[in-house]
């Protein structure tokens, strides 16, 4: 049966112009959606291909030769990579801890007080974010070379491995992370409702109590957000580590760069996939923690 039921309401015949306009609008919407899909493909395809070829059963990163996890096995057996991984984690944890404390204190000073020199401090706090990392890297390289401090190493035993981490790397990571933590915590402070703190002091809580019991818990999402950002930036950093490490010290990105310079193999793809998984986990954690918080991730930018 192909009977067409006629609409019961009468529709005014569409004028030609408005019909053309409607089709144009539909085409524009369709075009925009298609473009959006293409744009996201552009962002994701290279990463997906990278992960796929980490499972390739050959040395090629361009011709598929079957599924294999051999490159992951080889990665796990490469002591250099394992040490680099622990170096990365150690540097990230220590520098995040320091920069979170310093950045949070600075954010409170900047957001809660008006004082002389505040604008100058504002500029100084923003500079490490704006300045290109290559400039910051050579600044630190020169500084450590001249002052002689920093290239001493911090020796520790971690997971049965002997690490020796140059202080210079940690110092450099803290130097760029303080500002990022301060920005995130300030954003939180600016949106925070102050009535609770006022209520606390009305109820004769002293300043210290008010801070511990009211301000700090309310500020926590901002502090954790800042710490997560610092941790990610520290793990991801290549340029500043590369220039401040001195010879012989590798974090995972520095190690990967060295491997790339020697030649492309799916082993690098495997290490990259591992790092991608790590970043993905961090993003998911930060989203999980931000649940119920109405502000989006935009603020971090």
């Amino acid at each position: 049966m192909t009977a067409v039921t006629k609409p019961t309401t009468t529709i005014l015949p569409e004028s030609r112009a408005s019909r053309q306009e409607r089709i144009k609008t539909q085409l524009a919407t369709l075009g925009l959606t298609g473009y959006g899909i293409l744009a996201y493909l552009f962002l994701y395809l290279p990463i997906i291909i990278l992960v796929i070829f980490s499972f390739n059963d050959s040395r090629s990163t361009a011709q598929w030769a079957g599924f294999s996890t051999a490159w992951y096995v080889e990665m796990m057996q490469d002591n250099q990579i394992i040490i680099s991984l622990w170096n990365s984690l150690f540097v990230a944890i220590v520098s995040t801890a320091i920069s979170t404390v310093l950045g949070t204190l600075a954010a409170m000073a900047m957001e809660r007080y008006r004082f002389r020199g505040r604008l100058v401090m504002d500029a100084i706090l923003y500079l490490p974010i704006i300045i290109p990392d290559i400039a910051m890297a050579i600044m630190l390289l020169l500084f450590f070379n001249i002052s002689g401090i920093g290239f001493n190493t911090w020796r520790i035993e971690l997971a049965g491995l002997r690490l020796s981490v140059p202080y210079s790397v940690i110092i450099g990571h803290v130097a760029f992370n303080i500002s990022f933590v301060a920005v995130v915590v300030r954003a939180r402070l600016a949106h925070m409702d102050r009535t609770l703190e006022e209520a606390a002091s009305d109820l004769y809580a002293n300043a210290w109590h008010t801070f511990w019991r009211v301000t700090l818990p309310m500020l926590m999402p901002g502090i954790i957000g800042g710490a997560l950002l610092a941790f990610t930036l520290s793990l991801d950093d290549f340029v500043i580590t590369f220039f401040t490490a001195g010879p012989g010290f590798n974090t995972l990105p520095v190690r990967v760069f060295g491997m790339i310079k020697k030649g492309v193999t799916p082993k690098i793809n495997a290490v990259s996939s591992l790092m991608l998984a790590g970043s993905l986990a961090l993003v998911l954690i930060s989203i999980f923690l931000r649940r119920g918080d109405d502000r989006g991730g935009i603020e971090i930018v």
Partner: protein
Amino acid sequence: MQAIIRRSPAIRAWILLAPAVAWLFIFFLAPLVIVLIYSFLERGTYGGVVWQPTLENYRRVFDALYFNTFTRSVYIAVATTVICLILGFPMAYFIATRPQKIRNSLLLALMIPFWTNFLIRTYAWLTLLRTNTGLINVTLLSLGIIDEPLPLFGNDFAIILGLVYGWLPDMVLPVYAALERLDRSLLEAAQDLYAGRWQVFRRVIWPLSLPGVVAGSMLVFIPSLGAFVTPAILGGGKSLMIGNIISNQFLAAHDWPFGSALSMLMMVFMLVATLIYFRAVNREGGAGL
């Protein structure tokens, strides 16, 4: 003593600031000043410096070899910014016009590359673009679409592609933030007044999104001009940018003063370009800003 601290907010603020400020003074501002001073000194015979003030380092920047690299870097950074804007604006608009739920997922999908390692995203392109063993050329050759590998690698094209890929989210996010704040009733008002699609864009959407465009352009332009990783990996060792020349002065040539001068000029150039850009956009934006 305690009474003074309690009474003076300024002192309390400085106590809170002291650790961060101390760190940044010693490990950020002092290094910056050292680079500035070094850029005016003479190079020592075996690395290091001679304390003899000179402008020679700055003059050398204008030697053809270095100056060409400088202008090429500026060209690459500008091209990257423009392409990111052309690709990123409709992307931001696409996200901003989706329903809330989809919009959140799309934003998340944009944040993930933003949080992933830049080096790895660059490496991903290396495996695609390499001349004889890259996925694109290998596939096209085996399908018989081309007879000769395409020159996709080791040139400005590869560097710009890598930079666009790396920094595109930095353009999309601020533009999206501006578009999201945009008042829909303004668009309807414009349409009611018979503004065509182009006019709505030119007169309403564009001026109101300018703050986002400016922020995004800066977030793309500055790291592109100072790029080091992308040209080092995708430039194939010959297509170099200013960041690589700077790094060579410190790691290979041991000419610290010249490397310092190059970095100072790069930063000053970024500052000046930013200021000029802000002014131009302010004029363009008029009442929109």
